[in-house]
């Protein structure tokens, strides 16, 4: 593989990792809110979370560009006050990836949360654990298989994220040209099929490694939760 391709691999891993790391916490919070609270705007929040899933990635990228671009309502103050620029940066690619995979994580986490026996939370309450305490010591560990599954899905999806990234963060080698963008570039080149296939295989290999690792962790987790 060429140096540029290696760079794309490293960048893909970097972007996928950052995106998962960044979206995990909000995803858990949103999942908890959606599962455990009943409030008027709940359905709307649920729908908003799913938005990136239902519109084409390119449109998501376009929306992000409108919001986070230096002329956008969020991007402008970010840029002016903090000098932060997301468009065309690796962080921007991670943001686009995170937004795209957010519904996937939330779904997984919710499923994990729904299966937490509320009797155990009740037991923790009677033992004096307040809301945050029992969430951290009981709910969170018990929902961790769902979180792990969500993170893995998001990581895998992050490795493959294309439309939103190319639209929002552009296709800049070394900064935003992730593996899927490189693959795309290859398919845009006459006779690039072989390169595309090779890069797709690399992408696949990365995902497989991630999955295997997750499988190992999941097995330990199940043992740990006494379900082994």
């Amino acid at each position, binding site marked *: 593989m060429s140096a540029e391709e290696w760079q794309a691999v490293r960048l893909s891993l970097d972007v996928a990792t950052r995106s998962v790391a960044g979206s995990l916490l909000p995803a858990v919070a949103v999942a908890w809110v959606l599962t455990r609270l009943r409030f008027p705007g709940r359905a709307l929040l649920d729908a908003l979370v799913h938005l990136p899933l239902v519109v084409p990635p390119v449109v998501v990228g376009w929306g992000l560009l409108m919001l986070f671009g230096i002329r956008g309502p969020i991007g402008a103050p970010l840029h002016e006050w903090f000098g932060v620029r997301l468009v065309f940066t690796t962080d921007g690619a991670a943001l686009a990836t995170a937004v795209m995979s957010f519904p996937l994580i939330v779904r997984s986490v919710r499923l994990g949360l729904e299966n937490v026996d509320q*009797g155990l939370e009740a*037991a923790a*309450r*009677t*033992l*004096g654990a*307040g809301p945050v305490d029992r969430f951290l010591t*009981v709910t969170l560990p018990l929902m961790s298989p769902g979180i792990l599954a969500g993170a893995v899905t998001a990581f895998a999806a992050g490795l493959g994220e294309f439309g939103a990234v190319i639209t929002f963060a552009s296709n800049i080698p070394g900064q935003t040209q992730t593996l899927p963008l490189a693959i795309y570039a290859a398919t845009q080149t006459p006779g690039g099929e072989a390169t595309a296939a090779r890069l797709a295989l690399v992408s696949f290999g990365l995902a497989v490694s991630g999955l295997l690792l997750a499988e190992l962790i999941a097995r330990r987790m199940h043992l740990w*939760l*006494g379900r082994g």
Partner: protein
Amino acid sequence: MLGVALRHRFGRDGFTIDASFKAPGDGVTALFGPSGCGKSTILAAVAGLLRPDEGRVTLDDAVLLDTARRVCLAPERRRCGVVFQEARLFPHLSVEANLRYGLKRAPHDATGPGFEAVVALLGIAQLLPRRPGRLSGGERQRVALGRALLSRPRLLLMDEPLAALDAARRAEVLPFLARLRDAARIPILYVTHALDEVDALADRLVLLEAGRVVAEGSVEDLTARTDLPLAARRDAGVLVGCTVRSVQDGLATLDFEGGTLVTTSRPGPPGTRLRARLRARDVAVATEQPRGISTQNILPVTLVAIDEGTEAGEVFLRLAAGPTTLLARITRESVARLQLRPGITVWALVKAVTFDHRVVRQVAAHTPPGRGEIPT
């Protein structure tokens, strides 16, 4: 003092609870009643895990719940230790971490039994590193018991905590619970089907049926009544308060108001105050003083009344030994044969071995230190 008054209905026309009762500031109040009568529901409401339609729960000066005034303390602020019917251990924590869960979160000034003492007494030392998933049913319940005890609660709620323990383990844990109660001076609400647990632990009884309180009172009073569902039980009988006079060669002599009893149970050193259940079925009567008989306790008593029995062919004799009432369950045929009638004097016969040592309650503080001692 725990005051409970609840009204709750499941669904539109489901099961309805409408119960109110009090439990003394220390000591055990047993909730007693058939399966499905609402015992677990009441415990849940007291713990704060169920919000009843209407109700008021007070613990000493603290109002835990008052729907009229919209007060409803969160469960985690009620400091009720709960032992659930299903153990509800945290599957992701080791047994030790489960045990320490409540301990860690207890207020620093709260007192209660120490970790080692509880572990030793429940016989769970070798389970400490294990996960709950790898425990047998009984082991699980023992750990749950320890976890609740260690959370240093102001109030203990126990839902058939010993149902899954074997007899030997039960016999071992029961006096521990009794001592805990005496040392901790907190009210305990205790759900059980077993009268021996009531004997060993309960000071008051709340009899429930279909969500309502049928009778409420001291164990002594309620067990001496022959008109309650309790009397139908084969192990019904009165509880008698006693004091140990002497202990010698495995035989203890107990004084009670109205006479003396000899028992092979080991009630503790002289001076210990305790409570013995004299089951009605274990008491026989004789019209002439028996001789050459192994039965150690032969008490002169007055036959006060002959109550209807709960089985055909049986009656309850209400006997007065001084101020103390005893019940004897004998056949109607014997009543006729011996020409028993209220007012006459008879001998009540009670074997020394029918006093299980767990039917006695240690009130004195002079407990010899030993395994399971509760440092407070």
